């Protein structure tokens, strides 16, 4: 028998007992549907994280902090350099601050292109002209930062003019008619120094930032010039030694550095007494958690598929039983055992294909519908988030995996059919 005939006969045979095939297909459908949805969830969330990576920091930047003494072995010695942390962590967490001496040490480490202390600034408010004052939190721009902008441009690292990127929520509050009309206007930022005296610093609005999961949220981003100005204003009255305390610094390294080279650089910084993390390290933690959750969900779907595969075994055993005579006749007429095996195992594969293709197709429709509905309601604050996204590669993988499982399930009945003795099958006493 030609392969094409084996395939078309197998497909024809699978429709011979419609009810039985339909029920088996439904069982596989449920598994494939679940697998597609859970996979889509992982793809959607990880896509979103990847696209917002640039908002957290550039690819060629390490965030460096001083290596902290072990805090798990009881109280540790007082250190006058201890200061509040600005990096994500528990509230009230303190880190050992870095001094200009640390900065120059880091700059001397091989592989470091440049180092910039992160200035911790805490402005009080922002106002446009003589309007209402709104409280403001701001941070300095990390080198290479790419904000997700609703309008305007990224803050300039080289410009000496103070620039600020405001979150989209400030636009209407500050009295601008639209995101675009806010660009280029000047706002005043109020800040209190160490002697409780108030200062105002003017800044040009260069961009309006989208709200995002990994990004600035309600925080404004100041360019280097503005951050320095605010820092200077806030540090009036401090001794120079308390002024020059930084919780962390940004280190740039060669853009073309290989992952191995980055690891070596981190090792060198660790020997010098500093912890260094790339953006990928920070994002990696997120992704690991999401991948783990998706893995658990996927394993449920795979369990459903395994249950369905026993349905395939059952269905095909029944049809082998029913078609004993026919198999015997075909073998008497010279059909080889291999072809008989192929006939039944392809029928299994076809049932698997039907179930998985229909399951994946409906999952795509349902998933897209759900994520569209959620994007306009629950997740409207997170533009760009498609909760359930589908990549052609993973859909194809799911269909192939299900067909593979179906093939394995079909081997038992197919082998049984292939082994049949034509004489036994054609006996009619």
């Amino acid at each position: 028998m030609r392969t094409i005939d084996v395939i078309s006969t197998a497909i024809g045979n699978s429709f011979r007992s419609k009810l039985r095939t339909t029920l088996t297909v439904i069982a596989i459908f449920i598994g494939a549907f679940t697998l597609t949805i859970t996979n889509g969830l992982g793809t959607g969330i990880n896509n979103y994280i990847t696209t917002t990576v640039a908002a957290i920091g550039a690819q060629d930047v390490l965030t460096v902090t001083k290596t902290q003494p072990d805090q798990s072995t009881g109280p540790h010695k007082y250190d006058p350099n201890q200061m509040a942390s600005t990096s994500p962590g528990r509230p009230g967490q303190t880190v050992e601050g870095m001094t200009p001496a640390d900065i120059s040490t880091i700059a001397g480490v091989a592989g470091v292109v440049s180092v910039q202390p992160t200035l911790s600034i805490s402005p009080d408010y922002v106002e446009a002209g003589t309007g209402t004052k709104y409280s403001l939190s701001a941070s300095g721009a990390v080198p290479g930062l790419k904000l997700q902008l609703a309008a305007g441009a990224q803050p300039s690292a080289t410009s000496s003019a103070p620039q600020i990127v405001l979150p989209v929520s400030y636009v209407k509050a500050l009295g601008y008619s639209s995101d675009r009309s806010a660009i280029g206007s000047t706002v005043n930022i109020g800040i209190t120094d160490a002697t409780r005296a108030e200062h105002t610093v003017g800044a040009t609005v260069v961009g309006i930032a989208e709200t995002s999961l990994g990004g600035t949220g309600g925080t404004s981003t100041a360019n280097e010039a503005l951050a320095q100005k605010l820092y200077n204003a806030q540090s009036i009255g401090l001794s120079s030694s308390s002024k020059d305390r930084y919780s962390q610094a940004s280190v740039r390294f060669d853009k073309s550095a290989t992952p191995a080279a980055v690891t070596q650089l981190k090792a060198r910084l660790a020997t010098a007494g500093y912890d260094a993390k790339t953006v990928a390290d920070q994002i990696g933690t997120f992704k690991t958690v999401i991948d783990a959750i998706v893995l658990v969900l996927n394993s449920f779907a795979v369990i459903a598929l395994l249950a369905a595969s026993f349905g395939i075994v059952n269905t095909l055993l029944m049809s082998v039983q029913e078609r004993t005579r026919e198999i015997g006749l075909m073998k008497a007429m010279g059909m080889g055992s291999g072809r008989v095996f192929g006939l039944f195992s392809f029928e299994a594969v076809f049932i698997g294909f039907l179930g998985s293709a229909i399951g994946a197709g409906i999952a795509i429709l349902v998933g897209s519908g759900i994520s569209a509905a959620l994007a306009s309601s629950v997740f409207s604050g997170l533009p760009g988030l498609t909760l359930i996204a589908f990549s052609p590669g993973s859909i194809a993988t799911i269909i192939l995996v299900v067909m593979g499982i179906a093939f394995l399930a079909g081997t038992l009945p197919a082998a049984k059919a292939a082994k049949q003795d034509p004489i036994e099958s054609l006996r009619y006493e």
Partner: protein
Amino acid sequence: MLDWSPSIKERFSMPTPILAARDVKKSYGRGQSRFDALKGVSLEIFEGESLAIVGKSGSGKSTLMHLLALLDRPTDGAIELNGSDALLLRGRALNSTRNKTFGFVFQQFFLTGGASVLDNVILPLKISRVRSRERKRRGLAALAELELRDKAGNRASALSGGQKQRAVIARALVNNPRIIFADEPTGNLDSATGAVVEDILFSLNREQGITLIVVTHDEDLAARCDRRIYIRDGLVVETESRAA
């Protein structure tokens, strides 16, 4: 070997038999439960002949047919097809020989009820890798020969008993076999339809020279054959030729 001399002599004196059994034995089981179905049967069948293998149920006639049709291997002895040892054929070569040389007509029709009559008839062609268009042409020709051309598209289950057996004969014919094995071909038919089916089989034998091997316990059917072999308890007890 002594066995060779008569065989060589036969080859010189008369045409090579298309199919021959040489002292064929077949037993099932072992030890206590051993059962000898055939205890040494020799027989020669010549091209264009019609032969009846006659015997009661359990006589070994079906076993002999299975061995001659190369569906089973004898415990001892030899089967020759066209003068060459058929037992040397294995796997693909064996399947292909069965497919191209033999046609089968069984008491039970073994038609796939849900499939069309044409699809049932072209099954041997499908197995022997004939292309779809050619299959259809030859299938329709075989059906036309058995006056079933107008039923080609019908489901096989919708045919009457006689029509079913004609469809089975069309299926046996479609690959132009040299030998048709008919195992109780009229067993499931009433005598009128049975007679029609017999007429068809014997006319194929006469007009197309297809060798016909009929396995039956029906004396009337056996009487229409050129030669009859009576089998009892695994042995040939009598051989009869029709008086010419």
